[in-house]
């Protein structure tokens, strides 16, 4: 189609026209806010008090690294909470859906039904699943403790003591989101050509060998994708602790034992309201997430 000659190089416009609509949304909702956030992070800033805007350079960042200050304690506590959640939840959110996908990829009766069953929680909103699990875990007549008591087990305070509070959030999240990963794994499994398995079978490979030597390598690109999006999704933890534990239990040194970093940033920016330092926190979290994703790519690409 249209070809523009620019310094003797030829640039096709058509492809850019195709990505233009998305580009506009990307610029408006991601590009601009990102750079605007970066800019704000160098200011003392509250959008309702323009008269108080003050350039503070790196002060918002320095505050977050000043040992013993309130911001330092609260911010790094919440980072620790979120990282703990990522470490606990991501392996389960990869392994369980993979296992389910393999089970549901077999030709037995009722697979469609089970696929729908395992996927179903994912369509619920965060508030709904949080409430469901709150009712299961809560201490006064909650389902779990009721049955634990019946069979004579200890009845921990799931929502207000550690490590149980974190466990409840991890369990609720796994139940909620495993269906999504499972569907992606299922799609990938069905793309693996059957003749590979047949050939392996003829060569005498048992099912474990087939899994390790065919399934896993063939799934690798999808596996990397799943791990990365699951890490990012887990980093964005917010609703479950907000609804189930409200950050409890409180810690004497400051911060809640289940207060995730996204909640801290929201509170800093909209409750306190110091949008400058909230923006600085966001930038640091973004850097941490980038490092995570990059490391992931590196680790998995080495196997190629």
């Amino acid at each position, binding site marked *: 189609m249209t070809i523009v000659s620019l310094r003797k190089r030829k640039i096709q416009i058509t492809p850019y026209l195709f990505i233009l609509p998305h580009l506009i949304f990307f610029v408006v909702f991601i590009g601009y806010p990102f750079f605007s956030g970066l800019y704000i992070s160098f200011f003392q800033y509250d959008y309702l*008090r323009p008269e*108080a805007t003050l350039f503070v350079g790196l002060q918002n960042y320095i505050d977050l690294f000043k040992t013993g200050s309130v911001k330092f304690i609260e911010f790094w506590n919440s980072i620790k909470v979120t990282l703990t959640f990522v470490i606990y939840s991501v392996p389960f959110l990869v392994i369980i859906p993979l296992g389910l996908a393999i089970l549901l990829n077999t030709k037995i009766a009722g697979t469609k039904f089970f696929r729908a069953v395992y996927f179903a929680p994912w369509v619920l909103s965060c508030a709904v699943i949080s409430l469901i699990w709150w009712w299961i875990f809560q201490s006064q*007549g909650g389902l779990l403790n009721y049955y634990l008591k019946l069979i004579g087990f200890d009845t921990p305070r799931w*929502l*207000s003591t550690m490590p149980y509070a974190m466990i409840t959030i991890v369990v609720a999240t796994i139940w909620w989101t495993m269906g999504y990963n499972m569907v992606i794994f299922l799609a990938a499994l069905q793309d693996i050509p059957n003749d590979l398995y047949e050939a392996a079978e003829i060569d005498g490979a048992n099912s474990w060998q087939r899994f390790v030597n065919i399934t896993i390598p063939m799934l690798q690109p999808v596996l990397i994708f799943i791990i990365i999006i699951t890490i990012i999704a887990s980093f964005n933890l917010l609703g479950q602790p907000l609804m189930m534990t*409200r950050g*409890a239990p*409180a810690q*004497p040194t400051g911060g809640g034992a289940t207060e995730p970093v996204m909640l801290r940033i929201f509170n800093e920016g909209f409750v306190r309201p110091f949008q400058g330092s909230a923006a600085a926190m966001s930038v640091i979290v973004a850097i941490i997430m980038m490092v995570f994703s990059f490391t992931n790519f590196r680790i998995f690409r080495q196997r190629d």
Partner: protein
Amino acid sequence: MKRITRFVLPLILVLGLLLSACGTAATPEAPAQPAAEQPAAEQPADACGVVELQYWNPFTGPDGPFMGEMVNAFNAEHPDIVVTMVSQGEYYTQLSTAAAADTLPDVAIVHADQVSTQAFRNVLRPIDDLVAEMGISGDDYPAGVWAAGEVAGHRYSIPLDIHPMTAFYNADLFAAAGFTDAPKTGEEFDAVAAAITSGDNKGFDITGGFPVQQIFQMMLQQFGGSEFNADGTEATWNSEAGVQALQWMKDVQSKYSEPNLEVDAELNAFKTGTVGMVWNGIWQTTNVTGDGVEFDGRATAVPQIGPKMAVWAGSHQFTMPAHKTVDPCKDQAAAIFIKYMIENSVTWAKAGQIPASISVRASSEFKAIEPQASIAPSVEFAFFPPSVPGITDAFGPLGEAVGAVMNGTTDDIKAALDDAATRANEILAQNKATYGDAPKAP
């Protein structure tokens, strides 16, 4: 692949439907009901015609319909003013985004401890002149709740109600233990709590989450302490009184309560009928008394445990948000509306609140509303935090310290309170530095 699409697609459709259902969830609005020819006492000047007012509040719970009823009554009596009420959650986020877009309502409810912050953030404007015009003065209110509406020498709000910490008790358990009256002193409290605590029954349940920080504030005041110094520049809850207060809470927890309860667990336990007493906000009245429970659940004023009576309370206050251009017609109409709502706040009492106005509380109509009327005397002992911006931020560390002690994360009461005070002082200093001494000139 195809098979997957076949079952994923319908699910995505369902998801879409669910999401859109959430998106269109309506906020309760009180429909304007312009009534027929009805003479009203006060009307804005004829030049204004029919004035439309937007009125926002955070009453998304069961109290919303009572407020809607009051607004409808006002609209019926004032054909020249049409008030539209909007109740919404995430209230202060809504207010601040509306402030940024200059789409704030004409009248808004703001909590007492938020008035100063919202004033400094240019969400509210001073209304000294209008309050004088309305003929409303501080004489009709307890000093504390009236002072909460004054920021840097200017009046920003008029109290509508006071919602105090309330003692709820299970009269059936009381009777079984040989008691008829709710405790009014520390000794009586111990006696009844000890008598009820046996087996699965607990005398007094207290959690490690909301409202333990508020209970601590109340005990601190009762033992003669206070949360902050008078000008709100320093946290003072780590005093002798503070240690006494928290020690008392820890003691009653170990003697009469289940340990390590999460937020709301005390209410749920109370509703099962196995708990003698719980303390929570007066807004829980319908939840844990009357038809809300299968036993004889009652609400009354909290007892005096320490040497000095004090009751934690919050307060909803009428404010007028800031606008780029001020419309005198709307101001006048808003003043008429606010005055009407205050004078008729006896309807609001039915929603489970105590009217702030002394004259309304003295009316025979209010005195007929139980249990509000018998809780009402306690609001004379209500205390409010100093009116400085960002004061609620400074309560954050206190909530953490009290929660940590009650949840057993730490045993060292003094150290926890000291540590929290240090952090709160840092926050207060930061707030002082960013907010300055007075809001931007209106």
